[in-house]
């Protein structure tokens, strides 16, 4: 994960160092927030799975009772009513509507059952005999379907939460294992580059100072040499008699050169 390769392509400047530091801070805040979200969702998720487990077992019992009541109907009406029921179906009486529930920013739909009273497709079922059993069976099955609807909304919530938790966990892992190390690496890189630049700058200044000093010394030496030569020349000049320029130089400075 770490190493010089894993960093962002930035120029090592103080400005990008500032940007990277802000980014690291943002990533850490985001990480802790997402982690909390994931924990809240997981808590909810566990609760839902537990309730699903319970509801599934309850459903087994309820459906058993319902099947028994249908058997009663079959016995009472003295024959199969399935065909008649299937053919007289027109519009649904038992319907569902969905509403939303917000869990840590996740919209979980929940089904709610309701019965439209106006239509009744089975007015004639069990007219001959067993009408009471048919009615009872309808009630029992109505209750069973309510349980099923409840279970279905739990299951839908389960499916959606499962997806969301996976996404959130992936994000948490990505921030933790990719973004934060990479940003830290970048910061480290920028810091080392900046230090390197500092050292280079220092060394350069030292060098420049040395060079200047050297140049100055050389210039001094040169001048001294020149002066010496000129002094000799001046001597020669004084010997030759034209003393004017030699006098001027001698008066200005470097009296020590003149004997």
């Amino acid at each position, binding site marked *: 994960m770490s190493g010089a390769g894993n960093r962002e392509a930035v120029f090592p400047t103080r400005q990008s160092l500032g940007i990277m530091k802000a980014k690291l801070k943002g990533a850490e805040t985001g990480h802790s927030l997402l982690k909390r979200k994931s924990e809240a969702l997981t808590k909810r998720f566990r609760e839902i799975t537990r309730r699903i487990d319970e509801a599934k077992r309850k459903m087994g019992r309820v459906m058993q009772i319902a099947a028994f009541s249908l058997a009663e109907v079959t016995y009472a009406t003295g024959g199969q009513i399935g065909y008649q029921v299937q053919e007289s179906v027109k519009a649904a009486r038992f319907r569902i509507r969905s509403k939303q529930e917000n869990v840590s920013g996740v919209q979980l739909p929940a089904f709610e059952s309701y019965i439209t009273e106006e239509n009744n497709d089975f007015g004639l079922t069990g007219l001959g005999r067993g009408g009471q059993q048919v009615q009872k069976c309808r009630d029992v099955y109505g209750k069973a379907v309510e349980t099923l609807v409840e279970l279905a909304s739990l299951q839908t919530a389960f499916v959606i939460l*499962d997806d969301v938790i996976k996404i959130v966990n992936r994000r948490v892992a990505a921030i933790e294992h990719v973004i934060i190390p990479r940003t830290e690496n970048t910061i480290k890189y920028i810091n080392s580059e900046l230090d390197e630049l500092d050292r280079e700058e220092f060394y350069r200044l030292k060098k420049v100072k040395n060079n200047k000093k050297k140049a100055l010394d050389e210039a001094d030496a040169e001048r001294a040499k020149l002066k010496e030569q000129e002094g000799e020349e001046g001597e020669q000049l004084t010997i030759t008699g034209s003393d004017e320029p030699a006098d001027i130089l001698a008066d200005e400075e470097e009296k020590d050169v003149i004997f």
Partner: protein
Amino acid sequence: MAAPSSYKDRNFLAVIGDEDTVTGLLLAGIGHVTTGANATRNFLVVDPKTEIEKVEKAFDEMTARKDIGILLINQHVAERIRYKIDMYTAAFPAVLEIPSKDHPYDPEKDSVLKRVKKLFGE
């Protein structure tokens, strides 16, 4: 995440199952038959002679419909198209396996409970 439009109109339940289950649920009033040229029913009666292709087709049609919120399917029927149910992961419509008169409910076979078990590593 589900957009509001994807479940607001889902008003009906659908059922695929044996005759008794379907009859019972229809008596409860979940049946809905649309009229018109392409009339559709939201239930399918499956007996041992029904071909798997037909069940698969009904399953695909019902899961593709936009007005069904919950699809109930008998567990022994689900067993016959198990691979399809295991592959089905969408939230809507919710596919619910229910027991039937002749086949008691077995939580071990349920797709959702299998997922629960897998998630908690049991």
